[in-house]
């Protein structure tokens, strides 16, 4: 996770220097980006929940500052406030979970919590006349906290709106790193979740529903960035329900793969938007494969990796997810498998629709913008190339590391 965050962050920093070159507040922007990276690294490297919480709140603050970076845009300000409010609602549950853990374990250190969990297997909490197993309550609170950050169904509304921010922000924060913090929390506390089967059922239900709902929402969008935002939401659903199937390592594998191809998708979308004069409506694109060949190739690589095209990065993790869902002999296995399969079809459909509308239909842009269409500068292009390599090879080379030695597909 540390390496994923550093790599994507480095690529986005390089990309941003060119992308935001005309902006008078470029240095403030770079400052916020680096501050976000710092808090994200604190979150992933911390060996206790307090450090993780510090990073968690820090990335929330940076997300607010970066979504509302263009302060003169009303929609951007509204989106920033919405993201802040939704995340704070979820954070109330996370805080309650941490306080409960502190009360019982007398510590927030991961090694102590995970090492002494077996002592609390028969502990219950009584709320009025109902007794709730301790692990069920704690994991439920943690998951409700994770739902906000990872944009799961019900608390997902902030993510599509957050696309009002600059595109590098969407790539770094709202695709590759911040939104995966919730999944990371579940994986980090997986030993607790394994002792709470009721919570795992809930996690599976929400995850699969999010994956399918977001994929169907993406089908009819015309805003380029919103399509990718809904696809992020959908892929987060995949990661969540994989955790519910107790396959945390595969969830983490998909998280790492997704970071690369989604950052590539967002940055190449940014290159398109930059190239056609800040137009985001797909209906105003068309025939761009001839005008912007490099951006076309990059967006195509990102799209086919997202679809799970054989032997590209997305294929290795998505295929494994569907395989373990099919192999799970429980109703939740069948439920997640069906939703996962339908979501995969929807993903392929909206990805191909995006590529078709942007690159292969007749050009529908304003006549005045046609002479201004230009390919992206070298530095931006090299950042995309790094991510494209990750989107092609990460799955092949990462499967042994994440899934286990000798796992051949």
């Amino acid at each position, binding site marked *: 996770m*540390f*390496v994923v965050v*550093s*790599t994507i*962050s*480095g690529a986005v*920093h*390089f990309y941003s*220097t060119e992308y935001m070159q005309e902006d008078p507040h*470029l*240095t*403030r922007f*770079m*400052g*916020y*980006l*680096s*501050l976000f*990276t*710092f808090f994200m*690294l*604190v979150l992933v*490297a911390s060996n206790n929940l307090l450090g993780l919480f510090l990073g968690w709140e820090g990335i929330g603050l940076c997300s607010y500052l970066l979504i509302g970076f263009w302060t003169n845009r009303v929609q951007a300000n509204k989106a920033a406030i919405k993201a802040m409010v939704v995340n704070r609602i979820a954070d109330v549950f996370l805080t309650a979970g941490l306080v409960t853990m502190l009360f019982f374990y007398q510590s927030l250190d*991961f090694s102590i919590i*995970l090492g002494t969990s077996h002592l609390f297997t028969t502990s219950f909490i009584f709320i009025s006349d109902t007794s709730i197993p301790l692990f069920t309550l704690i994991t439920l609170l943690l998951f409700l906290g994770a739902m906000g950050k990872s944009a799961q169904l019900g608390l997902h509304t902030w993510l599509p709106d957050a696309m009002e921010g600059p595109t590098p922000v969407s790539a770094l924060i709202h695709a590759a790193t911040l939104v995966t913090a919730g999944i990371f929390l579940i*994986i*980090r506390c*997986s*030993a*607790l*979740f*394994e002792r709470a089967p009721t919570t795992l059922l809930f996690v599976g239900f929400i995850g699969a529903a999010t994956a399918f709902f977001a994929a169907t929402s993406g089908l009819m969008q015309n805003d380029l960035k919103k399509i990718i935002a809904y696809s992020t939401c959908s892929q987060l659903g995949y990661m969540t329900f994989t955790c519910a199937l*107790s*396959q*945390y*390592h595969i969830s*983490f594998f998909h998280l790492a793969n997704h970071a690369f191809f989604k950052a590539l998708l967002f940055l190449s979308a940014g290159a398109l938007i930059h190239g056609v004069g800040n137009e985001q409506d797909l209906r105003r694109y068309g025939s761009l494969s001839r005008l912007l060949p490099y951006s076309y190739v990059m967006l195509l690589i990102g799209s086919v990796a997202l679809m799970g095209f054989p032997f590209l990065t997305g294929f290795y993790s998505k295929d494994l997810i569907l395989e373990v869902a099919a192999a799970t002999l429980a109703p939740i296995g069948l439920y997640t498998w069906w939703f996962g399969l339908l979501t995969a079809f929807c993903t392929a459909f909206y990805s191909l629709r995006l590529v078709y509308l942007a690159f292969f239909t007749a050009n529908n842009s304003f006549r005045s913008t046609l002479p201004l269409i230009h390919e992206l500068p070298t530095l931006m292009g090299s950042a995309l190339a790094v991510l494209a390599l990750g989107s092609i090879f990460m799955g092949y080379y990462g499967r042994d*590391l994440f899934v286990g030695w000798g796992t051949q597909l």
Partner: protein
Amino acid sequence: MFPTLILLNFEFPVENLLLPAIFIPLLTSSLALLSWGADRVWLLRQILLLMALNGFISFLIWLAVVFGDSFYVLELGT
């Protein structure tokens, strides 16, 4: 081979790399937010250099995780 040799054969304590890797982005952020009036090109160059350094340190950590056996394994529930 050089970083691998350092990390494995001489048992370089990899945990020591975490701290610079975490704090370099904070340094970069402070540089960008607090240097009012500094030359923009110079500032951007410093930021990119620092982030490249951060990427390199993370790469060393990755090498240690992949080829070493002493460092930070996620406690998975399965």
